[in-house]
């Protein structure tokens, strides 16, 4: 079930082919790299491709879900840059479209679409972990607005973003049934990361980048105009964002199908169709040898054999042989995720809703993403560990580190499995 609208898909593909920068893409986790990505977002916006599923009035194209998926397919297949504005575009944007006032929509959505304002999320807290309802950062009533105090963490993009949005406790006394009390008394707020009282401390990630930050808030004033919905209603509004089909719940398969295709290509280079070894060995050279040139050119030749011992040399199979079924399974899983997502999109387009089923997808894509990249690194040989390697093989390590976060964020996979068991299968709490 491919999206019908071949025209839009074709337009996107053509535009991306001519516009995606050819060279290496800088990290989004440095000031320069962030600026580079902001410029790319502006280029997308100028082509009205930055927020395709939004209403035309705010810079979008009113694209259907299927068209949005087609765009994502093409975006990943073109190896286009990571979306630095995605917190705003996929999380806050849909929330404003659903729960924001028309004043808020008109004021905030266009600069978001143009990347004039890039948003960070401010959900988690140091002691809340996966337990989002354990929020302690406070919003205290002040004249014409609220004063924010507390600490937010794991705030992606916050190191360089302009603004942030998140939940705060506005009514600490909310009580009643203790099982649900924690979910009441929360307020959904937006604030500037440059406001007085805001301190941002970047957090270094596993791979060395600073994609996360901690946000310290000390009586930061937020006007009433920047509250979404009613005070006390924040939990409900946030949950509707978390479940938004164009956000995290219906994650586009583009990343996975593009990576699966690259994995097949990598595997093909390390093994022939019937298991014939790939190119091996290095041409004889006269004079003292050096390995400098090899690092960037010969690449995969080194993974083909490990014939250190003469007696075994003749019998050694290609490395690719010993990962063939993992490659097959990764491709099949990426295919399954793509087909499942399109089927879900078709169902949603026909008026269906997405509830706890989203948990099935979360676990599946996050495990798939890790397995795909792990298999590639197992095939890659001595270059696998090099950070920031140029060329297509250089993307596997970064992709792997990125994938490792998948089973943790947006509700750990343990939590998701419990949701599946209790809410979909009906097992007792």
């Amino acid at each position, binding site marked *: 079930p491919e999206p019908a609208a071949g025209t839009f898909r074709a337009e996107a593909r053509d535009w991306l082919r001519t516009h995606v920068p050819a060279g290496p893409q800088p990290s989004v986790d440095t000031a320069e790299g962030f600026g580079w990505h902001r410029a790319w977002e502006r280029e997308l916006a100028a082509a009205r491709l930055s927020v395709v599923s939004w209403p035309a009035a705010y810079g979008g194209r009113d694209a259907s879900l299927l068209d949005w998926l087609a765009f994502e397919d093409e975006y990943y297949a073109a190896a286009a840059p990571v979306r630095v504005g995605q917190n705003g575009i996929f999380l806050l944007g849909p929330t404003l479209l659903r729960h924001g006032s028309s004043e808020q929509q008109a004021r905030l959505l266009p600069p978001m679409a143009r990347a004039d304002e890039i948003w960070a999320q401010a959900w988690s807290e140091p002691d809340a972990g996966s337990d989002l309802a354990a929020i302690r950062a406070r919003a205290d009533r002040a004249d014409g607005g609220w004063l924010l105090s507390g600490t937010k963490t794991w705030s992606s993009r916050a190191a360089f973003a302009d603004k942030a949005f998140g939940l705060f406790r506005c009514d600490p006394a909310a009580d009643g049934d203790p099982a649900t009390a924690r979910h009441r008394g929360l307020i959904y707020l937006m604030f500037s990361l440059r406001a007085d009282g805001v301190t941002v401390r970047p957090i270094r990630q596993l791979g060395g980048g600073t994609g996360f930050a901690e946000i310290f808030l000390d009586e930061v004033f937020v006007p009433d105009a920047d509250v979404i919905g009613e005070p006390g209603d924040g939990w409900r509004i946030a949950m509707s964002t978390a479940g938004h089909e164009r956000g995290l719940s219906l994650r586009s398969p583009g990343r996975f199908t593009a990576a699966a295709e690259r994995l*097949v*290509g990598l595997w*093909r280079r390390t093994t*022939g*169709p019937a298991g014939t070894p790939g190119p091996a060995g290095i041409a004889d050279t006269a004079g003292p040898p050096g390995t400098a040139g090899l690092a960037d050119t010969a690449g995969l030749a080194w993974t083909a054999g490990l014939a250190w011992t003469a007696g075994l040399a003749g019998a050694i199979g290609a490395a690719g042989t010993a990962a*063939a*079924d993992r*490659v*097959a*399974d990764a*491709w*099949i*899983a990426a*295919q*399954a*995720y793509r*087909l*499942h997502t*399109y*089927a879900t999109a078709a*169902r949603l387009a026909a008026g269906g809703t997405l509830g706890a*089923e989203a948990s*099935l997808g979360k*676990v*599946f894509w996050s495990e798939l993403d890790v397995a795909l990249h792990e298999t590639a690194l197992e095939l890659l040989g001595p270059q696998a560990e090099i950070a920031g390697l140029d060329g297509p093989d250089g993307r596997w390590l970064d992709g792997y580190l990125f994938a490792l976060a998948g089973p943790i964020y947006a509700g750990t996979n*343990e939590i*998701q*499995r*419990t949701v*599946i*068991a*209790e809410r*979909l*299968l*009906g*097992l*007792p*709490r």
Partner: protein
Amino acid sequence: MSLAGSAEQELFAAALHELLTDADVTGTARRWAGQDYAAGLAVWRRLAGAGATALAVPGEHGGLGASLADVMIACEEAGHHALPGPVAESLAAVPVLLAGLAAEPAVAAWLPLLAAGDLIATLALPPQRPYAADAGAAGLTLLVQDDMAWLATPGTSHPSVDPARRLWSVDGRELLARGPAVAAAAGRAADAGALACAAQLLGAGRALLEQSVQHARQRTQFGRAVGSFQAVKHRLADVAIALEFARPLVAEAAAAQTEGRATAPRDTSAAKVAATDAAHLAARAALQVHGAIGYTRELGLHLWLTKVQALASAWGSQAGHRARVLAALAADEATA
């Protein structure tokens, strides 16, 4: 006819589910295991009454000419209820084969009988598929080898791990057709059979999940419901995930076969691999959740456990299907 959309397909599945729930499939399977086929054939006739046997038969030969997606719904429900008999053969592979050979009047004559459920058929496709499943219960046994299609006679039989299933070696008796059309039809039939097998595995996996959930809700251990243990929850959640994501692969392969796409063999193998893995996961989880009782024939759970094991290697092994996916991908890559 083709069921118009997923809503109609769901209604059809529900109708078959109700029909098979009313039939005593467990008792039927027990008798089938003793080569007493009467009760089982009666269930098949009721399925025929609901249209299941006519789906893959072309309209001009008395069938419904439905899409393979619809055929797979019937196969999945058959697996869901561990229905004994040559499901993949009679509901999918044989009608697809015969439809390709219908220029022969003798062959064409069987199609309406298949559609009406008056004839249950099975076949062998050596070398990959040397045995005809349940030929002892079938009214028609076929053999296709190289480019020749034969009417065949069942020879000796072997018991399957599934007690309600036997595998028969067959002898060609009368040459029905010969030529490239036979080889082409046999290729389509083999893919239809493998996919029908995948659909049955999905259904069987679903049944195992349902029975495991049921058991986990009712049974207590160490003073708590078994299903309240996190290890049980997470294991059954993984089964639900595997089944959920195998299903669209079956649907895609059905569409590819119906439309005769070049990707049909690859997509069929992908579906068979994923459905088999999901059903295996369901079987392992069911054993673990049920404990020792699941390892017996006391509950009837063994009908599904052994059917999963039988169908896992029927119509191509996991290793063979993975190799076929890889070969197709390698070929794509070579021409890309």
